[in-house]
């Protein structure tokens, strides 16, 4: 079962976990908005339609590569605040190595392959977050 959700609502971890609990092993990753350098608000822009298609493609690749019983990607968009959940990836499989690897694959590749853009508001001023080379390297190890 694949579940893709792009939403302005808070991410409900408990519900996502329960829907993943198929097979013997579930691995999840949750990214939170950090309060680095006084960030008050983080705004997430995305490319409607293309985003969902990109996430679905990633989830399908993970399911095929690791024979997953379930894969979930939830990404929040719009304005959010430090401590809130921005992204959730989850993978379920019969065995733990597959679930753990697939979960890491989903978040690493999401960082480079899905059209989201972060804008930080610090002291009332907005600035677009720069892409990081380390994210390209992390994504490359799955190619």
């Amino acid at each position, binding site marked *: 079962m694949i579940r893709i959700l792009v939403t302005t609502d808070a991410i409900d971890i408990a519900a996502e976990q329960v829907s993943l609990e198929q097979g013997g092993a579930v691995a999840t990753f949750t990214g939170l908005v950090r309060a680095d350098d006084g960030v008050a608000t983080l705004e997430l822009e995305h*490319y409607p339609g*293309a985003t969902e298609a990109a996430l679905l493609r990633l989830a399908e690749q993970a399911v095929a590569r690791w024979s997953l019983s379930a894969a979930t990607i939830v990404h929040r968009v719009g304005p959010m605040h430090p401590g809130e959940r921005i992204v959730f990836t989850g993978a379920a499989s019969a065995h733990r190595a597959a679930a753990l690897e697939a979960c890491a694959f989903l978040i690493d590749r999401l960082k480079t392959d899905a*059209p989201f853009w972060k804008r930080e508001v610090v002291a009332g001023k907005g600035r677009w977050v720069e*892409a990081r080379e380390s994210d390209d390297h992390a994504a490359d190890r799955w190619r």
Partner: protein
Amino acid sequence: MQLLYFAWVRERIGMGGEEVSPPEAVETVADLVAWLSSRSDGHAAAFAKPARLRAAVDQAFVPLDTRIAGAREIAIFPPVTGG
């Protein structure tokens, strides 16, 4: 063809997208970006450094040297920063 702009590309141009009909000499995404640069100061600012741009043709990420013939929707944006 329909163009879409995101993040600081959108902000500098001052709109989320526009409908354009480039001449035949505009063969690739890079050509399109160069051609668009003359449309306004905002376009010129957004497209000043093509190396900082990324693109999608009909919702699939592509390199800037991709040919655009037949494309219906082209999106131009900075490197992605989700997750």
